[in-house]
């Protein structure tokens, strides 16, 4: 039985560590949201960080990302339209395309794009700050790091994801119209009918909540992971790796929950 004790200890410690990090992430998300909803938390410094975060997360990649999303959307729409036509189900092509792209693929794609680009950067930055003791130093000096450093990043991330999803979705709707009806305006009533069918209040609210959840996940998880980094330099890459994996897992979980809510 002797060999079992260290094994169980190791497992238990691992499990506790995992539990702790999830708990910390949840706490951080809650505190951030509460702070974000407090008007007094905003000042010039906070706004500056938010704007910079949005600039680096959304503005810089907007043209490239939009082009990429448009190409992917157009190819997928064409595949759906052609396949539907082959089976004599053309009337469903538009609905399927819009549901698939606007409701599912584009938000997820945006979240993954932002995760790869900004979340990893945030995670590294926070981890290094933690390792170098900057965060503790700031807090010792009476600076509310959550309010000045972390919350603005989260807000910037959420707004960025929302903006990217909105722009790429709007473009995709235009592309879907062109792919299905051709470049003319006479079929707008038909298009409107399908839109009315797809976007009811529930779906719209669900899409908004899902996008916000994606935005929250891509910023809160790397920040929480960075804050949980042990103060050893070699732990920085490990922290980023863990953060990314957990982020991917959470994004998929959100998507799965949203699908289950909509279709089950």
């Amino acid at each position: 039985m002797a060999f079992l004790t260290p094994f169980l200890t190791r497992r238990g410690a691992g499990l506790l560590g995992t539990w702790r990090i999830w708990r910390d992430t949840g706490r951080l998300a809650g505190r951030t949201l509460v702070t974000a909803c407090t008007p007094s938390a905003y000042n010039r410094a906070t706004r500056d960080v938010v704007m910079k975060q949005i600039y680096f997360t959304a503005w810089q990649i907007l043209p490239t990302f939009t082009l990429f999303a448009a190409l992917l959307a157009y190819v997928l729409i064409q595949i759906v339209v052609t396949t539907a036509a082959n089976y004599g189900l053309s009337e469903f092509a538009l609905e399927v395309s819009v549901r698939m792209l606007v409701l599912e693929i584009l938000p997820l794609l945006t979240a993954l794009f932002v995760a790869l680009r900004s979340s990893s950067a945030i995670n590294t930055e926070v981890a290094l700050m933690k390792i170098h003791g900057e965060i503790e130093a700031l807090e010792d000096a009476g600076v509310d790091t959550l309010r000045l450093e972390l919350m603005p990043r989260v807000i910037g991330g959420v707004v960025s994801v929302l903006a990217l999803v909105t722009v790429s979705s709007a473009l995709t709707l235009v592309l879907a119209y062109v792919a299905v009806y051709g470049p003319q305006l006479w079929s707008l009533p038909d298009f409107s009918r399908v839109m009315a069918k797809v976007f009811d209040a529930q779906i719209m609210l669900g899409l908004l909540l899902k996008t916000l959840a994606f935005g929250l996940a891509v910023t809160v998880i790397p920040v929480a992971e960075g804050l949980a980094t042990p103060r050893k330099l070699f732990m920085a890459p490990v922290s980023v790796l863990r953060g990314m994996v957990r982020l991917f897992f959470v994004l998929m979980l959100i998507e799965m929950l949203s699908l289950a809510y909509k279709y089950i």
Partner: protein
Amino acid sequence: MERPPVPEPVKRPIVPPLVKNLELKIGLLLSFTLLLIAAFALYVLHARGAFEDTRSLVLIAENAEGINVGMPMTFSGFPIGKVKRLDLGAKGEVRIEMAIPERDARWLKQTSVFLLEKNLLGAAKIKAYSTDLGDAPLPDGETRALLTGDIAQEIPLLVERMKGILTNVQAMTAGESAINRTLGSVATVADRMAGEYGILEGVLGGPEQAMQVVGVLQKTNSLLAHLDGVSLKVDGILAKTDSQVFGPDGVMDQTRQSVAKVNAILGDARDSLRKVDVILANAQTASADVTRITGNVSAATADMARLRADVDDSLRKINHLINEINRKWPFARDVEIRTP
């Protein structure tokens, strides 16, 4: 005492901001995003008919299979309304509440028919049919029956009917069927028609009969030629009759001469009567002069005898004339007419 020199304030280099026009860019991006979201929300509200008046129509169906909320109802293939609510009625019937935009309500009439079409593949469809567009429009909140055109339900029935039809077709195409026999007879007739006498042979059944008909035709032709001659002769006879009755020395001419003679005889008779008048006058004078009468009796008697002879003569002539006329008049009742 010298004061220590005030240290020069540290000159901080003026660091250009990291991003130019950061606020403008972020403002642009955010307002564009908000604009898109608001515009899309408005568009969806418009598409869902939030800004237009609708009138309701309740359709009653047997079951709600394949019908769902938001499903469109089409008229001539165009959507003119959609299912707003599904409900189960008191008697277990399905009440389908439709919302029809005011501008599309004109297609629905009192006599409109509503049909639920279920296909083997694809979604069910609610279709409206208005045969008479001049009819009175359908009022708001009306209740109508939703007829079901379920192809899947019809298939077994269709198969049964098809079996019956196929059996009939089989009987018709069998070797000894009526159609085959009829076709055989038609072939025989057609063969005959191809013979020397054509259709006649086909209709009459053989060349002999056809030959007889042709013979009859030839005889008829010669008979007609004879009739031509006969009619020519009749023409001649009529011409002769004409000349004998109406020509010079014809019956009419002689009659005219006889009438002239009658006139002359009548003149004679008038003369004789005048003479009688004279005699009667003489007799009057005689009665007045009785004495002279007795004296002249012998002479008077002689005159009377002569007068009697004259009257007799006239009467004889008239009698003769009447006989003559009777003889010559061709149309007298008891005169027999003989053909010339």
